[in-house]
């Protein structure tokens, strides 16, 4: 018997154990300090007077109205933005035209414009003093300080999320599969439904979740257009700020905790979906 020589091979991309642990440590510490600690603080603050007080503050009429309003806004603006995002990404990736780069920049505009400025733009366009706004108010359809204005502001701010997620995926996938479907006799709509959409569904889901989280959480633009009318146009983030400014900390943090939970639920939903379709994901993402 010869002496056993144990050789340890390390793949080229693998780091030394020390480097690996340091990197992981930094990442975990960073997430703990920057993400988890503040989140825990919100929940802790909400529960300082006990669960009963927190729930009671959520049952308050203004809080209920804020929750309802935020959910309505998300329910309107997220599907609309998903549709616009798909259309924009499809148009940009499937056709060649002049000014494409400019259009892509334009889609990013809401990310670079301050939400407050975006809100002001809507007020300028649709406020009582504007031509359109004056006419709409006179006919009984006010935009500013009402639901339509808040939806518009939310949609403006969250417009890029879906398109941004889809464009790289659709560029990478090219047109070949869709062309194949067409040559096999499928109509344009059928091709979209059975080939385009399934191929982008994960990116779409992710974009929709991000869009939804932001739609429920948007403060700046909504603050400008909503007029912050308690019980009417005050969304959850706006109500949280007002309560906080009035030193009603349990009420403010209870609502904040609920807003956080809503965001966490969407993330959990995504994770659950990914787990359920893990095998299919693996099969379709290789090669």
């Amino acid at each position, binding site marked *: 018997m010869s002496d056993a020589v144990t050789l340890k091979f390390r793949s080229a991309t693998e780091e030394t154990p020390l480097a690996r642990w340091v990197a992981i440590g930094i990442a975990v510490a960073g997430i703990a300090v920057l993400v988890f600690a503040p989140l825990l603080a919100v929940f802790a603050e909400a529960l300082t007077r006990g669960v009963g007080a927190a729930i009671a503050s959520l049952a308050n009429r203004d809080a209920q109205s804020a929750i309802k309003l935020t959910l309505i806004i998300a329910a309107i603006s997220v599907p609309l933005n998903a549709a616009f995002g798909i259309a924009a990404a499809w148009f940009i990736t499937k056709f060649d035209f002049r000014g494409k780069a400019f259009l892509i920049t334009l889609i990013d505009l809401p990310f670079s414009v301050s939400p407050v400025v975006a809100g002001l733009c809507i007020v300028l366009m649709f406020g009582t003093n504007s031509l359109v706004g004056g006419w709409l108010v006179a006919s009984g359809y006010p935009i500013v300080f009402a639901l339509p204005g808040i939806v518009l502001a939310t949609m403006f701010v969250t417009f890029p999320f879906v398109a941004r997620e889809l464009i790289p995926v659709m560029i990478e996938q090219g047109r070949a599969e869709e*062309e194949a*479907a067409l*040559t096999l006799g499928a109509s344009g709509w059928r091709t979209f439904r059975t080939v385009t959409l399934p191929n982008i569904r994960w990116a779409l889901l992710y974009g929709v979740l991000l869009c939804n989280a932001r739609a429920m959480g948007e403060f700046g633009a909504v603050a400008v257009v909503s007029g912050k009318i308690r019980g009417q146009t005050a969304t959850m983030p706006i109500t949280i700020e007002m309560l906080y400014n009035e030193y009603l900390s349990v009420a403010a943090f209870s609502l904040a905790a609920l807003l956080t939970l809503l965001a966490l639920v969407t993330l959990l939903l995504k994770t659950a979906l990914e787990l359920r379709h893990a095998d299919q994901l693996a099969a379709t993402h290789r*090669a």
Partner: protein
Amino acid sequence: MHIEIDEISKQFGTTAALHPVSLSLPSGALVALLGPSGSGKTTLLRILGGLEFPTSGRVLFDGQDATGLSVQERRAGFVFQSYALFRHMTVFDNIAYGLNARPRASRPTKAEIARRVTKLLDLIQLPDIGARYPSQLSGGQRQRVALARALAIEPRMMLLDEPFGALDAKVRKELRQGLRDIHDTTGLTSVFVTHDQEEAMELADLVVVMSMGRIEQIGKPQDIRARPATAFVRDFISA
């Protein structure tokens, strides 16, 4: 089906991909479009399939003007260079796609579709892979599935863009005979694109040599070998 290409030209912006070319492909022939990269082979094939529309000229199927027919109406069995299999569907669903896409009135029953898919899987000699996803197949298997998927729609012609392009030399040789066999059993007019002169000469009944958007020569392989029409053809086939 007899295919007639009448003075077809194609312009992409300022680049002329095809100068007016004319070509007559007899019914049931296996035709090779042979030429170097950028010579316009894919463009011509896509125009035949209705994926691209010519700047000028006409396409005739059995003497009927087909220039205005949509891609769906052409009923061409198209095999793409990278196969373009639907990656989120099993092999079975890939092959069944064209039958499922038919309007309800002419759509076969589920059982009939299953029967046809099974028959096509036998034809490509891969009877057991129906449940797999494209990513779980080898390159040669993907190519054959793409062929079966195109055949499933009972096409009027077969159009194949570099059907062996992405495969290694050994598999290429095997599949060449496979394509020839399938062509002979179906009897469909088939056009395939290649830049491999050996492949064109060995496989095709008729070879169309192209260069820079023009047709240099059309003829039977042995005629092109014996009498190259231009210096380009002579250089290209001896390469």
